[in-house]
């Protein structure tokens, strides 16, 4: 601490911005152990369930109809049922843990532009979960194919639609993490935000019971949308994959934008 130091500010350029705030958010995410527990659990779930399911397909006992609809790619991603919730929780915690601890006021004191904070959080969280999700999805796919016994037909990345299915299986949990982040910024409480997320992912699809509604669910509810996108065998009544995926991305953008708006509006 020196007497001359607090007049040096003018020389320091433009001030904080996306780069410095993202650096803060990366430090925050990486220095809490639960982040890496969740990432590890996601990988174990995805790969473990892929091996478990594909090693018990029982292709020999299948009827002809079952064999026609057998989709060795889609079956590798049963783990998404849990994986989406794990990364969704990671997204929720990225913001609600700041509210529950009081950290949020340290954050906003350092960076008063709150939408910038959430944008940087989303960028860091999205990058980490996307990278982890893609690696995990490829591992799950490869492990699943290795676990699948002949004479069942195996999937390869070169077959039409397979690469897309694997890529979406990696990206989907990252999108749910971003939705979780947005919901967390809106709700502020961990339990409440996770409940809201469970409601959207698991409860809402249960309400789409009639065939017509099921069709709508496939195209507009996140979990059924992911189901359709990770299927290589065509599912009747679905919109083109590109449209469905764009819609999923749209949900994530809307959730983060709504969260940013709520953060800017309410007292910390």
């Amino acid at each position, binding site marked *: *601490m020196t*007497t001359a*130091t*607090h007049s040096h*500010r003018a020389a*320091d350029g*433009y*001030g*904080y911005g996306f780069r*410095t*705030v993202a*650096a*803060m*958010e990366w*430090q*925050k995410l990486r*220095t*809490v*152990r*639960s982040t890496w527990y969740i990432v590890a659990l996601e990988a174990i779930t995805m790969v473990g369930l892929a091996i478990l399911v594909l090693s018990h397909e029982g292709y020999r006992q299948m009827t002809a109809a079952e064999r026609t609809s057998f989709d060795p790619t889609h079956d590798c991603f049963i783990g998404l049922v849990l994986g989406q919730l794990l990364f969704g929780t990671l997204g929720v915690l990225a913001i609600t*843990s*700041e509210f529950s*601890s*009081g*950290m949020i*006021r*340290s*954050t*906003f*004191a*350092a*960076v*008063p*532009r709150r939408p910038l904070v959430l944008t940087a959080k989303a960028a860091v969280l999205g990058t980490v979960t996307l990278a982890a999700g893609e690696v995990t999805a490829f591992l799950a796919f490869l492990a699943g194919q290795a676990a699948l016994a002949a004479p069942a037909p195996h999937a390869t990345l070169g077959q039409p639609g397979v690469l897309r299915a694997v890529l979406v299986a990696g990206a989907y949990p990252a999108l749910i993490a971003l939705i979780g982040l947005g919901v967390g910024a809106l709700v502020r409480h961990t339990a409440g935000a996770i409940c809201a997320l469970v409601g959207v992912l698991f409860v809402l699809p249960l309400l789409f019971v009639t065939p017509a509604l099921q069709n709508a669910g496939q195209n507009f509810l996140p979990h059924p949308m992911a189901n359709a996108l990770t299927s290589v065998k065509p599912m009747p009544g679905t919109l083109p994959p590109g449209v469905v995926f764009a819609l999923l991305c749209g949900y994530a953008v809307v959730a983060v934008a709504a969260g940013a708006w709520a953060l800017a509006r309410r*007292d*910390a």
Partner: protein
Amino acid sequence: MIEARGLVKRYRSTQAVNNLSFDVRPGTVTGFLGPNGAGKSTTMRMIMGLDRPDAGQARIGGKRYADLRWPLREVGALLEAKAFHPARSARAHLNALAASNGIGSRRVEEMLALTGIEKAADRKAGKFSLGMSQRLGLAAALLGDPGVLLLDEPVNGLDPEGIRWIRTLLKHLAAQGRTVLVSSHLINEMAHTADALIVIGQGRLLAQTTVAQLSARGSLEEAFFRLTEGTADYSGSL
């Protein structure tokens, strides 16, 4: 220099801060004094841009907090003892905040040493005692070597040695030409730390004075009670 002009804050049924105006000047420690519930913390949060005033505004060196380019290099604040993630280490907490304002990790190490928590720097901050949490909060406030400091009840939880240390530190910082605003509900504590005083009660300004003026006629404590009479949220009887 901190300027508060006509600050108003209402929460549902209560008027927490009511048309509050004052100046905090550089070069001395200014005590922000009032009974519990007088609106000290709310006022500090409004200065920091954490709570939005219903009317009026606060400026720091002529700027609104939201317009500061490097907030941590201009204002350091300790508003609550545990404003950190309990599972993150003290060092990681400070490094994250430092990164947001382009402050290097060498400064983080210096502040860990200055506040005497370097040996505990890699432990989870959630395991810290109240006194150590206050020291971590102070380390965060001083990270950017700011010209303005806002501290809300910083001696809470500190042992006598810690209290003396913080008093000396604050006086030293003010003597370097910084603006230092320290809140407390304890007049005697303030008398040892502050020179200038801002006294509020029920969200209103009761006096902008000095410790010397207030204690000119008899006991400081009596003078404080006369000032805040009838504004305390509750009063006990024997």
